[in-house]
């Protein structure tokens, strides 16, 4: 029996109500946060009672402000992406360009599994790695910024691998045969033809990885994030981080002032993550434009008009 008009209208009504429910849910979440927390957004939220300039230049420590947590998150992101990027990029290139048949599906499966591992398991792994190194290698190693970054690198590796692989594989076939037909080696083709064109999609993966590092709590909770640590002075020390601060404050704020700090922190983290997302789209366009003009410019200079 074909669905009559009423049934079709029911489907449409259902679709619309789902959309309405979803949009109201997310507006409730964000709206609640903004309403309760907008009042907390000021310099004191970030720097406590220390002067902003002194804090940023690390002349004086900040107490009761988010600055150490923000710096901690920043360092975490930088370190993790620095570790994961070369490995992820190279792996993606290998999968897209060199691997064949069985090896390719095996590796593909392994990386799908890696992508699915819950963050808490990776955190547990990082923690036990730290203990292992502490007991076997050096008593100076314990859960710290370095271990956290390493664990986060594990977490975001699949994003980088996937986006590099997908970016390279989605390039038109002609790019793989034109330059080699003119004598370029595989490596030269990858470096001068494929990578520049795939860069915009790879950049998308990088931004995703950055976002993931900034927001993750489960991994850092187990590998070195603490309630109070000041600005980290080295990679082998405890550190504070924004998402951990939010979690910590949510369950144990001592007074309404601390609670509003929590709201402020949540808003800041939300803004950072959403901005990264928007940055993604902008970056893609910018990277594409620049690389194309650079590539064209170089060819022009080398070979003449």
């Amino acid at each position, binding site marked *: 029996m074909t669905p009559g008009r009423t049934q079709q209208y029911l489907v449409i009504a259902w679709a619309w109500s789902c959309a309405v429910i979803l949009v109201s849910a997310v507006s409730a979440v964000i709206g609640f946060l903004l309403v309760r927390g907008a009042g907390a957004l000021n310099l004191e939220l970030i720097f406590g009672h220390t002067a902003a300039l002194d804090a940023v230049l690390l*002349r*004086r*420590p900040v*107490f009761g402000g988010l600055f150490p947590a923000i710096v901690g998150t920043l360092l975490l992101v930088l370190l993790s992406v620095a570790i994961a990027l070369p490995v992820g990029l190279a792996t993606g290139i290998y999968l897209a360009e060199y691997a064949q048949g069985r090896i390719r599906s095996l590796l593909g499966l392994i990386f799908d599994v890696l992508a699915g591992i819950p963050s808490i398991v990776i955190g547990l792994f990082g923690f036990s790695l730290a*203990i292992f190194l*502490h007991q076997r290698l050096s*008593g100076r190693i*314990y*859960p710290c910024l370095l271990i956290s970054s390493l664990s986060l690198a594990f977490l975001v590796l699949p994003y980088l691998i996937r986006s590099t692989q997908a970016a390279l594989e989605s390039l038109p076939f002609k790019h793989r045969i034109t330059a080699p037909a003119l004598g370029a080696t595989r490596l030269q083709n990858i470096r001068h033809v494929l990578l520049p064109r795939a860069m915009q999609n790879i950049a998308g993966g990088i931004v995703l990885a950055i976002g993931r590092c900034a927001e993750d709590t489960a991994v850092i909770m187990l590998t070195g994030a*603490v*309630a*109070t*640590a*000041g600005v980290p*002075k080295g990679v082998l*020390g*405890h550190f504070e981080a924004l998402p951990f601060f939010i979690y910590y404050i949510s*369950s*144990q*704020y*001592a007074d309404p002032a601390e609670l509003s700090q929590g709201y402020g922190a949540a808003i800041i983290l939300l803004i950072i993550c959403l901005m990264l997302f928007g940055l993604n789209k902008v970056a893609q366009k910018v990277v594409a434009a620049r690389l194309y003009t650079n590539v064209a410019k170089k060819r022009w200079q080398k070979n003449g008009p």
Partner: protein
Amino acid sequence: MLCFAAGGWCGALDAFNGETGTIRISGGTAHIPVMKEAAARIMSSHPDIQISIAGGGSGVGIKQVGEGLVDIGNSGRSPSDEEVHKYGLKMFKWAVDGVGVVVNPKNPVQSLTTAQLKDIFAGTLTNWRQVGGSDKGINLYTRDEASGTREVFWKKALAKGDITPTANVVPSNGAMKTAVANDPWGIGFVSVGHIDATVAPVALNGVVPTLDTVRQGTYKVARGLYSNTKGAPTGLVQKFIDYLFSPEGQEIAADKGFIGIK
């Protein structure tokens, strides 16, 4: 600036002059306010020193300091002989605290007997009506097994009675306070030093858990606040422990709601 405000108590902080390095502290969550304040004072006058503070509970503090992962492990219960022997711990008790039962300020129930408390936490008494309150289910909050506060509560207030597995579990004293403050029908236990206007203390067998009753000894559910180190403390860590025992340190402890040992 803090030195000026504290008047002549600068002396204790002077001990840190010329020191650099890091102190890693973890463990008992009741100690955290005191640790934070002490760290803030030390770090503002001596920016080369870095102190990091983590929570986790007394169990965490003891284990981590024993394994060498932190320099000072705080605990709200005295480490057992087994733990002292296994890790070679040195214990320093710098304050006395109590563990009090708390309910939401909106709750009319202000007093309980040990028998009632045992039944509530065992899960046999499930409605506030049964202890003189409104007709609402009792929401239990307890701590995880690493908690020294929980251990003291279980031993002394509950007389080793069972805690029902259906109770909500919160990870720290601060979290317990927040949970009970937000739940009109909740009941939990928290360090006496943490009790403020957001929660209402419950008298146990007629004795209200306050600083005074703990000090006088009339409120029996008391425990010491310990900072433990692996072996005798040296250098910066030794100075920090000394600071806790100094008049300034004891003043901080009293300020945060504990009873100084001196």
